[in-house]
């Protein structure tokens, strides 16, 4: 089974998360800028005179499609690298895990598991899959 991870994280944690994922062999991802709020509720900005409250604040959404067997390790890596301090803080974000019907790699036409494999990735390191060049 293939899964999609959508991680909503702090903008300033993107580099830490990318490095954390690279360290365990997650090679492919894309990111987009999103705005939203959860429990943190928003932030206060400076206006012309005094301050004002903004309820939607900028976040990063990280999208990763991967094999089910790699989900737990990946989620742990994201949690570890995206959390503020040891205890974490409101606004650190959320991770959503969704089922994925199918993946097709445009270059080769490969489908499914093979389409999300890269040389040197998490599966290859664990000897779980063939390497595509």
């Amino acid at each position, binding site marked *: 089974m293939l899964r999609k991870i959508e991680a909503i994280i702090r903008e300033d944690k993107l580099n830490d998360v990318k490095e954390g994922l690279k360290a365990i062999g997650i090679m492919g991802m894309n990111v987009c800028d999103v705005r939203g709020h959860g429990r943190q509720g928003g932030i206060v900005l*400076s206006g*012309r*005179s005094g301050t004002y*409250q903004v309820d939607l604040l900028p976040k990063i959404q990280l999208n990763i499609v991967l094999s089910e067997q790699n989900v737990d390790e990946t989620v742990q890596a994201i949690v570890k690298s995206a959390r503020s301090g040891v205890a974490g803080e409101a606004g650190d974000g959320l991770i959503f895990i969704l089922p994925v019907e199918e993946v097709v790699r445009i270059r080769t036409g490969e489908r499914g598991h093979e389409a999300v494999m890269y040389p040197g990735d998490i599966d290859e390191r664990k000897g779980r899959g063939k390497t595509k060049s």
Partner: protein
Amino acid sequence: MENAINSGDTAWMLVACALVLMMTPGLAFFYGGMVRRKNILSTLTLSYIFMALIGVQWLIYGYTLSFGPDIAGIIGGLDFVGFKGVGATPSAAYGATIPHQLFASYQMMFAVITPALITGAFVERIRFKTFLLFSLAWATLVYDPLCHWVWAKGGWLAEKGLLDFAGGTVVHIAAGFSALAFALAIGPRRGFPKTPMEPHNIPFTVLGTGLLWVGWFGFNGGSALAANGVAVNALLTTNTSAAAAALVWMVLSWLDGRPSTLGLATGMVVGLAAVTPASGFVTPMAALVIGAAAAPLSYYAIRFRQRRDLDESLDVWACHGLASTWGTLAAGLFATLGVNSAGANGLFYGNPGQLWTQLVGVVTTMAYSFVVTYVLAKLLDLSIGLKVTTQEEEVGLDISAHGERAYS
């Protein structure tokens, strides 16, 4: 008369004229940065249009209503319709060493920017057609007479001895109180005040502020109508007031949280507006006080306006109207013949009567501009409507009024 032309004065006034023209694009970007991204082209147009609209109105009849031969202290006669007789020789009454045509052109730039200032009150919701009619009517019924009263030879406030060096009353109080009246007539933007309406491009506002500050050297420095010591003093008082107001604004903003960039830019403009009426009559040290005191006045006036849930959207009243009210009164305190022998002494130089004259000028300008603007706006509201439809407002005026989008 031809040999009365001084080439130094003429050269400076040509430059000053260009500097004041540049303030209208500066203002357009100052305002444009503070609206939402769907209304940036509309907001720019609301300012830029005056370079075209008043560029024609002033030539045809605006100048003569303002500076034509006086009729009863109220209005100028029609001698200069179409700039007839306004040529290369100096005018008998204004700018004895520069071509009359240069004086008239320089004054045109003031007539251009003043109604543009008002547009901050009704951005993001005004019907463009209504706006054009209002603007032409306002220029004719408010600016031209007021300009005559204050600056024309024989104008009744000028005869009273009102000190307004570069437009505290004619430009900033008139624009500020007209903005207040118009905001009351048109009502708030949809969603105000619950939905935060954030500035979409503060760098535009900061850029506009820079253009305004530079342009203001022409606005105030040029109002000496000559390249002389009064012009230099006006330039320095202008710089000093802007600097002082910006520093105080930064501190106020810091005490409320962080030293805001938008706040700093606003403080600069407030300092510039405040010193305008006094710039050619007071010392640089007086300008320091004028700018420093203007900042808290406008800063807390914005807060007051917000607490009243009044959508005078870009705070023309607080920033221009009130700052220049203070500045015009301050001229009655700090003015000294030592700076400008053609001016007067203020209260601190032994002439308390000057403060009274200033007060008369301020109150007259406030009342006249507020009442005429409110009546005009109400008439237009009852006839063709002031505000766009809800859907047009939601889509944004760039698309609904102009059929364009700024960022594709």
